[in-house]
């Protein structure tokens, strides 16, 4: 068989493509088989908490002092190994206080009570029904679960931070540096780690997950548990749930509803106990 240079190069090129590309195609197919199989839901077996759409009511009448708020924040940040870098530039937070005018910008009124204007509202991921962060993520690293929780897959996140640009609530934090590192004084950023939960790594985005790991065990989210009734967590689609009861009996507001993301976190502004 005779072959000129051109033919040889053609055949060699095709062989290379087949050699390099073939396994990739096979691997891709295998991947898809797995994705299909994982869609099968294991029926509730171990008493996990389930819902159609998880939501939360923050009752500000129960958060009178800083200690009330700090208890909740610490509970969350400790069990999730949230680092404290001690500077706002690298800051990572899942739940934290913002005053009314910052939590609800555009809603402040000129002559509203000073105490309300300065009242620190606990803010966290709103687990929106129509989440823009999920819409923009190029790898489905952030996605909405069937129970309404907007979840992060830290294994898949490429750290493009499109979700941070898209979230209207500033709920997302980025690991600008290694959360497992230490500061100049040799103090670790994660003061005391929780060995039951992972940390994160450089270059991924993180946020509140409504404690999916605790729901799976039949436990309320850590913040709700520590809140002394200040945070009511439950199924928004279930008429008889405690959260729906709370919503029925109180005037509540949500953050930036005009944007159409439909947050699942509601706020009761304190002092109105007309159950």
């Amino acid at each position, binding site marked *: 068989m005779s072959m000129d240079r051109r033919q040889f190069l053609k055949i060699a090129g095709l062989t290379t493509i087949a050699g390099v590309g073939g396994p990739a195609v096979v691997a891709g197919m295998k991947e898809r088989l*797995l*994705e299909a199989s*994982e*869609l099968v*839901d*294991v*029926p*509730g*077996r*171990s008493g*996990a908490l*389930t819902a159609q759409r998880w939501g939360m009511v923050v009752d500000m009448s129960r958060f009178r002092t800083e200690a009330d708020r700090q208890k909740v924040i610490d509970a969350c940040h400790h069990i999730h*190994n949230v680092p404290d870098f001690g500077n706002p530039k690298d800051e990572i937070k899942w739940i934290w206080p913002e005053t009314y005018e910052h939590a609800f910008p555009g809603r402040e009124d000129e002559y509203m009570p000073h105490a309300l204007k300065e009242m620190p509202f606990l803010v966290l991921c709103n687990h929106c029904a129509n989440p823009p962060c999920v819409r923009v993520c190029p790898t489905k690293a952030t*996605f909405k*679960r069937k*129970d309404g929780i907007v*979840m992060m*897959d*830290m*294994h898949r996140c490429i750290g493009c931070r499109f979700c941070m640009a898209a979230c209207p609530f500033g709920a997302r934090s980025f690991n600008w540096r290694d959360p497992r590192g230490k500061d100049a004084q040799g103090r670790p950023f994660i003061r005391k*780690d929780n*060995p*039951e*939960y*992972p*940390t*994160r*790594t450089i270059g991924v985005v993180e946020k509140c997950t409504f404690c999916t*790991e605790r*729901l*799976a065990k039949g436990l309320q989210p850590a913040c709700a548990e520590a809140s002394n009734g200040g945070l009511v967590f439950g199924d928004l689609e279930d008429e008889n749930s405690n959260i729906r009861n709370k919503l029925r009996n109180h005037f509540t507001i949500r953050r930036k509803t005009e944007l159409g993301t439909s947050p699942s976190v509601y706020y009761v502004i304190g002092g109105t106990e007309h159950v």
Partner: protein
Amino acid sequence: MYDGNKIIIGLVIFGLLIISPILYNTIGKASVPPEPDINTPEINKMIEKKCVEPKSFMRANHMQILNDWRDEVVRVGKTRTYVNGEGKEFNMSLQNTCMKCHSNKKNFCDKCHTYMAVKPYCWDCHIAPKEKTT
């Protein structure tokens, strides 16, 4: 062929370089693959020393199981329960199930991974257990 000798010498050197790892292992002493160590207090306590799946299966497919667990826990699972071939249930968790028994990451995970020169990124985030070996 111009410069035929040089080309042939070059080819021989190239060929030797390519097969040098094989030569090294056949002429020299082949290195012994390490045996993962299961000597931990937790495993020693077990009456029947059994992992979630049979040893041979785990040895070949642990990375696949871990990947499946990962996707199930993070992306789907409400209960995070794994049912093995014998119908036994396990909490799908690297930190809270696997490493609770295999509390000797250095002698269990790292030994083989170092030998195979693979660097799984599990431990970038997941917290390794306090090393325990009896």
